[in-house]
């Protein structure tokens, strides 16, 4: 796996907007001085990740968002076919299809493969990301 790249500089806080409004969008992707960041809204939770796939450096946050696909199996071991999770959403890299859980940033089969988290918080009702400085 190639290491994600992001300049370590003095940290900068960026206010993105009101959480109540942004969370209706599920995702926004921003470019700050050449650093891409994806911000995800899951219920009242907020997550942010570097827009660089740990696989080959693709623009992972700019791909599709898909429900996790499940192998459905009956108690007797027989297949019930494939199904979509009603709870878990995946971030899909548009370059090669690597998938990551939206809340944990981890690959569903190999959790050692994950997105690089970016500090994000809701302060006084506004979504604030911190870029540069030490990584989360």
């Amino acid at each position, binding site marked *: 796996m190639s290491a994600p790249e992001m300049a370590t500089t003095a940290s900068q806080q960026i206010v993105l*907007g009101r959480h109540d409004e942004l969370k209706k969008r599920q995702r926004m992707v921003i470019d700050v001085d050449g650093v891409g960041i994806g911000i995800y809204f899951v219920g009242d939770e907020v997550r942010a990740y570097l827009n660089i796939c740990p696989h080959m*450096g693709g623009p992972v946050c700019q791909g599709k968002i898909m429900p996790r696909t499940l192998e459905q199996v009956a108690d007797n071991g027989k297949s019930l076919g494939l199904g979509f999770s009603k709870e878990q959403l995946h971030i899909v890299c548009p370059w090669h299809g690597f998938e990551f859980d939206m809340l944990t940033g981890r690959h569903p089969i190999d959790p050692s493969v994950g997105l690089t988290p970016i500090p994000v918080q809701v302060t006084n009702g506004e979504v604030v990301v911190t870029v540069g400085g030490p990584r989360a």
Partner: protein
Amino acid sequence: MTENSIPNFREIGEITGSTDSRDVLAHATRQAARNFDDYLIVDVDAHVSEDHFWSEIIDLIDNDVLRQIGQHQVKGFGGQNALLNISPGLSLQSVGGRIGHQGRREPVTDDSVHRFISTARRSMDAMGLDYQVVFPSAMLLLGMHPQDEIEVALAKAFNRWMIERILPIDTRMKGLLYLPFNTPEACEELVAQYGATEGIIGFTVCSTRNKPVHHDCYMRLYSMIQELDKPLAFHSGYHWGDPSFAQLNRFLSMHALSFTHYNQIHLTNWIVNAMPERFPKLNMLWVESGLAWIPFLMQRLDHEVLMRPSEAPGLKRLPSEYMREMYYTSQPLERTNMKLLEATMEAMNAETQLLYSSDWPHWDWDSPATISSLPFLTEQAKRNILGLNAARLFKLDTTRRKPLAEDVLSSRPKTAS
């Protein structure tokens, strides 16, 4: 939103199947700018999907009856798959649309050159490629077409389209002549007609077929190709109709096995029947099977040949020694275990025998960073694999052909990134 108060902060959009290639590949351009902008890079296997232009190829079929059938199909149910034996319902490569560049259709407004050239140039510039060799995507399964005369007709039409309409426009694009291998006499005619053509740097057989490569019907063909001193490539593929593979219920399984299977069959026949001794100057190139199968087959064939030399009496060396003199393309490079990959590259003499390939715009494409980021390769090995080995094999001029990566980044449309 407070974006107006933040300098250099902008929102960027989703990448889809209609996003400009330069935006889809912007991260690859940055990789080029940082790490290999001064390398010669030759992409030995790309697929600027000719299905977008299939009606142009149908119109070039020389047989009146087949051309009329094809033109009728283009207007109807067959559409851009006219006369082909691919199954659109089994085209699962994009993983349900998750990977948008498989089958991409991006807008092109510049009509000063063929649209094929415009889109190819975008991907070449964005990845930092000096040359790109184009393989025909939709024709990869033609070896399984039940009507041999259709393969011959489409091969003639495609080769003519490539030679007359595409290659003369941009010398960065090169072609391998498609050989309708199920009909050896037609292959010989095509080699005689086009083999010495500028821009045709070798010959390709689509591996997905059940024809033994050691059959005597091919010996004249191999002699002709050897005489031209251009390599013969076998490009692998898949086919759900092959009985063994019909057991596999997921495209993942099919893709993992079939793309190595067909080249293993052909390479095994090639060696066991002593073809390297019969055509010692014919350079063989094995395309799109990755690398993991190579040490497997080397060990397997060496083991068998040592026990049963009477069944491979034409050999003067171990199979692995012949295999180390053949050429291989890199994609899809298995990178999950660096120790195994390093051992594989050492076993196959990758420094001199491996050729970078992107397979763009297919779902499992590899950027040049797939090679440049390998921690165990020397810089010279990276330069060889990314371009110099191909330049030697195909006799390409090594003068820089591509624009500067920084210029590509600054001129891209930035519609999505």
